[in-house]
């Protein structure tokens, strides 16, 4: 462990710098970036080799972003990545340029969305936004739709965070739900979801909660009816019900774990007091040794 061998190459240093940046806790990108910048001590190398990690971090974290022409925030994710630092907002049919360091949107423009998927996408977006209103005080929902090879794929992303650096803590929840089904609807499809929570507490310490859960459920896809959005709305209703139930069950299970961890696991690691129910008599502790020495003398 003490022998660290030969110095590493610039390429390896930049890889380490990127990895550190990708692991910044929610709300602490700037602090981690500044630490890494001073440790690497080579701004050109950092810009050249690690700027990909700035974008990757924002996409991984489902970073919410304010754009012109929308009351709702939009999430920066890999599914909306149009290349050249431009991202899609399917809700307002716009694309925008995103500055990954300043975390700002500019150059908003109208954008095309997949027409075939749009009725399903917007129904699910409306339904999940209503779910968001009921369960996420400060949450953001972005739903993507695309058609390919006769199939429609809908990917829904939900994000909610709380930053309180003055109180030395930050937290974020992210969930992503996807389903693929034939364009015309009908039949059943598999709705897969992943829910992740990360919490960082750092007053005189570093405590982090990292959790994730995968979900698979069957979703009934209503058959598309001409000149009506009833089937899309019905499917969206069921989609949201699965999401509500799964996320609520998950939150409940986390709460139960907390209880078991504190009542059972933690208690078994260290007692509050010895069985005597009083603190230790230290003179007695060192006295015992003398006593046994005398016995053996």
């Amino acid at each position, binding site marked *: 462990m*003490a022998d*660290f061998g030969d110095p*590493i190459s610039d390429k*390896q*240093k930049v890889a*380490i710098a990127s990895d*550190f940046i990708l*692991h910044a*806790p929610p709300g602490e990108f700037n*602090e*981690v970036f500044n*630490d*890494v910048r*001073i*440790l690497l001590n080579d701004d050109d190398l950092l810009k050249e080799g690690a700027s990909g990690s700035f974008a990757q971090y924002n996409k991984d974290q489902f970073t919410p972003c304010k754009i012109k022409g929308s009351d709702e925030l939009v999430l920066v994710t890999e599914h909306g990545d149009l290349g050249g630092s431009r991202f899609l907002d399917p809700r307002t049919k716009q694309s925008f340029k995103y500055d990954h360091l300043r975390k700002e949107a500019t150059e908003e423009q109208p954008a095309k969305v997949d027409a075939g998927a749009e009725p399903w996408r917007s129904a699910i977006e409306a339904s999940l936004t209503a779910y968001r*209103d*009921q*369960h*996420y*005080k400060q949450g953001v929902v972005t739903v993507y739709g695309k058609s390919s090879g006769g199939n429609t794929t809908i990917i829904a992303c939900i994000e*909610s*965070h*709380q930053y309180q650096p003055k109180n030395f*803590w930050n*937290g974020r*929840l992210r969930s992503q739900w996807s389903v693929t089904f034939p364009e015309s609807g009908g039949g059943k499809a598999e709705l897969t979801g992943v829910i992740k*929570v990360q919490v960082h*507490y*750092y007053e*005189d*310490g*570093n*405590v*982090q909660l*990292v*959790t994730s*859960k995968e979900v698979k459920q069957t979703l009934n896809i209503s058959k598309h009816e001409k000149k009506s959005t009833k089937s899309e709305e019905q499917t969206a209703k069921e989609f949201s019900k699965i999401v509500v139930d799964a996320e609520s069950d998950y*939150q409940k*299970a*986390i709460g*139960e*774990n*907390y209880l*078991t*961890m504190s009542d*059972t*696991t*933690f208690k*078994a*690691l*260290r*007692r*509050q007091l010895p069985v005597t129910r009083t*603190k*230790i008599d230290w*003179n007695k*502790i*060192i006295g*015992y*040794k003398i006593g046994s020495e005398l016995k053996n003398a």
Partner: protein
Amino acid sequence: SDQQLDCALDLMRRLPPQQIEKNLTDLIDLVPTLCEDLLSSVDQPLKIARDKQLGKDYLLCDYNRDGDSYRSPWSNTYDPPLDDGTLPSDRLRKLEIDANTAFDQYREMYFEGGVSSVYLWDLDHGFAGVILIKKAGDGSKKIKGCWDSIHVVEVQEKSSGRSAHYKLTSTVMLWLQTSKDASGVMNLGGSLTRQVEQDATVSDASPHIVNIGKMVEDMENKIRNTLNEIYFGKTRDIVYGLRSFIPLGDMKKQDALRNDLAAALSKRSAAQ
């Protein structure tokens, strides 16, 4: 440089503690000149080694390391063996043996299991030491838990020899992991650090081990309470703040009902 060390330590407070060892290795690769400073100031989960001579376990840390070898507090020898490994002075070794015996009992009374080790080293006007304790849970209820204590004490003996100044810096690491169907993978881990200083009389009735023992015991009891509050109170509350289990519309209705009731009651008492 000092600024780089500050940044490295800040980074270690932000990166997920679940990867402390990897983070530390990467950090040292990134800035090799900080190697010794980082190894001595970043706490890592304690590793256990076996003293084959005496058949007893002991804990590894930077304070009993010399090169790639570690010193056992039981046999006072290095593994792998060293010709000229750093050893405490004879007087200090006597105290170290007594300290290990005392804290072995402390460990048994509070932890009912686990491993402990105490290492001392000489200072100009006193001595310093580290008291280590490691306790792993039995994995019941499908939850893996582990506790690591690292107490570093600095003792400045006053020239009269009848009192001393004690400075204690304690870090407790607590690791909890579970993987179950309903809750997926849940990993709650990290550490808290506290510091305390005090003067105390040194006498036959109140020798160093008694003074240090009391400080460590009080400190660990305090930290245990704080760990309980932070891990199972604070972080849980933060999760509940990210998503509301009860539909917010229902909460608004509850709040409105509460306000209506309060208004009606105050109207009634005003009328009386």
